[in-house]
């Protein structure tokens, strides 16, 4: 098992009442899985994804990645994990405007390592079809191009799992198809993929489909 959650719970307090964004969640991801998580807005999908990426602290339960419990890691440990085993794509345009496309792709690597990675970054940009944009500023990119850069960035550290939060949420149908195809290519190269997406965008090659409702996760 590559990634597994056991009784994972995360709650928030809202107007004096406890609200469970994730309740006793059990999720399992094998290294060859392409997992889609769907659900209505506010059902807890993004919270779950961010718990998996070590961006949020769980109230209780465990998240095991390659047998290592993320809930027991400190900030530096989690950051190191995000910079190596996990490739994360946040919602919307997540590129840093102060840096070129190429630097955005290199950034996760340089946050934790000192060796040069520009050649690999160029290769990744070529793989996602935007090698010619490496010197551009993110502000000049279209939504689809920005998403491709984010995908290239998430792959720079050769992660074992790619986690994407609504990567096609604000894209037109054609660009959505391109991005989904890109995820399938990543998956084909041996990277497990966990994607929060809309029902209508579930690709045919999905290996597991989970539905989130009021913090409860169910396998379809």
């Amino acid at each position, binding site marked *: 098992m590559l990634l597994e959650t056991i009784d994972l719970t995360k709650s928030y307090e809202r107007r004096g009442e406890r609200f469970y964004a994730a309740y006793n969640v059990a999720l399992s991801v094998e290294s060859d899985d392409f997992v889609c998580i769907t659900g209505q807005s506010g059902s807890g999908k*993004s*919270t779950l994804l*961010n718990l998996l*990426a070590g*961006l*949020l*602290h769980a109230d209780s339960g465990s998240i095991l990645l390659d047998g290592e419990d993320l809930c027991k890691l400190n*900030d*530096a440990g989690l*950051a*190191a994990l*995000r*910079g*190596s085993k996990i490739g*994360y794509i*946040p*919602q919307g345009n*997540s590129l*840093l*405007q*102060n*840096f*070129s496309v*190429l*630097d955005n792709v*290199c*950034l*996760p690597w*340089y*946050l*934790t390592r*000192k060796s*040069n990675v520009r050649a690999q970054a160029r290769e990744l940009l070529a793989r996602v079809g935007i090698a010619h944009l490496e*010197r551009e500023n993110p502000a000049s990119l279209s939504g689809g191009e920005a998403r491709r850069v984010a995908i290239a*960035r*998430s792959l720079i*550290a050769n992660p074992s799992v790619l986690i994407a939060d609504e990567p096609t949420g604000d894209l037109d149908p054609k660009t959505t198809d391109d991005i989904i195809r890109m995820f399938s290519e990543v998956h084909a190269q041996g990277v497990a993929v966990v994607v929060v997406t809309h029902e209508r965008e579930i690709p045919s090659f999905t290996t597991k489909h989970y539905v989130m409702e009021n913090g409860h996760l169910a396998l379809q």
Partner: protein
Amino acid sequence: MSGGRISTLKIAVGNIVHKRFRAVCIVLLIAVSTLLITGGTMLGFGLTGGVKSINARLGADAMVVPRSAGESYEGALLTGSPSTFYLTKGTVERVLQTEGIARSSPQLFISTFDSAHCASLVQIIGFDPKTDFVVTPWLKTASVTEPGYGEIVIGNNVQLVVGNKMTVFLLELEVVGKLDKTGMGFDNSVFVNMDTAKMLLTEYEKFDGATPLPEGATAEDVYSAVLLDVEKGVEISSVQRKINLGFRDDDVSCVASQTILESTAKNLNLVIGVLTVLLAAIWFFAVFVLAIIFTLALNERQREFGILRAIGATRRKLTAIVITEASLLCGAGALAGVGVVCLIVFPYSTLIERTLKTAYLPPQSLVAAAILVLCGVGCAVTGPLASLFSAARIAKNEALANIQEG
């Protein structure tokens, strides 16, 4: 930005370049604060140095001057405002018979003219080497040659060097010595022996605008002031009182050195106190304004920091980015401020001295360098200090919260 490895420094520089207007505002704020704090500290040191200098140079217990020339005398002493005034020899002789005086020495003050007759407007101070106990020891300490007849020793602000000639009342006098800076009127004065002074007074009287000698008197019959030391065990104030009461009708005033020192020191200490409070207020104001700027800026950048966390940055890394950014901006501001101080305060220190109209002795080079470094560093750290709160807050937030708040 593109090219090269992406270090914390590069991320910080990228953020600065991306928000140029904010960066320029912060740099300007710190530059102005540094200018005020460093300039103010220099001023404070200069005024303190001035007080110490008066203490060191007022080598007599008291001075007898014409009552009507009291302010002129103090002006000549503290700021070098040139003036000419007289005490007749007869009056001086009678004053010196006052009980309790151990030793005395006369001085003659002559102002030059700001005209073609004279090289520059200076205060000429004639002293009698036979009786002098104030100027001579000072010349000896500074290893300056005692001026002979027709020779002059110049104060530090007089723009001549030893060996030059200075035209005074159309006569050429040779410079035989130049004194160290005192921060007092002496810096703008020219010292001559009494014979030269009498000769110069005779020439001075030939020009229009000269202060006329008392009726029937010649240059040989007048002095301007008499410096006194009282006998051991005698109170200066008692001799002062005797002279002031005994010569009430003779336009004579006896001023104790301590009185000049105390009143000047009191005024300067008040100025220094106010200056210190103002400088501290400026520093705290800068920290406060920067704290607001950084808090607003970091609120605006929550998403950016959230993304950095999401792609592998630790909290420590985020703190380092924020503090590096603040340090770069405030370092640049402090450097600019110190640079402006160097460009303004040093070249124009003489003008500042004259404008202040009080004893002002600028700090020596080493002290000035130390002030520049300390004030520069003090102002440069305002940024990192002001950003600590915001940096801690942003690092404490959960990464997701940062992304969502953006």
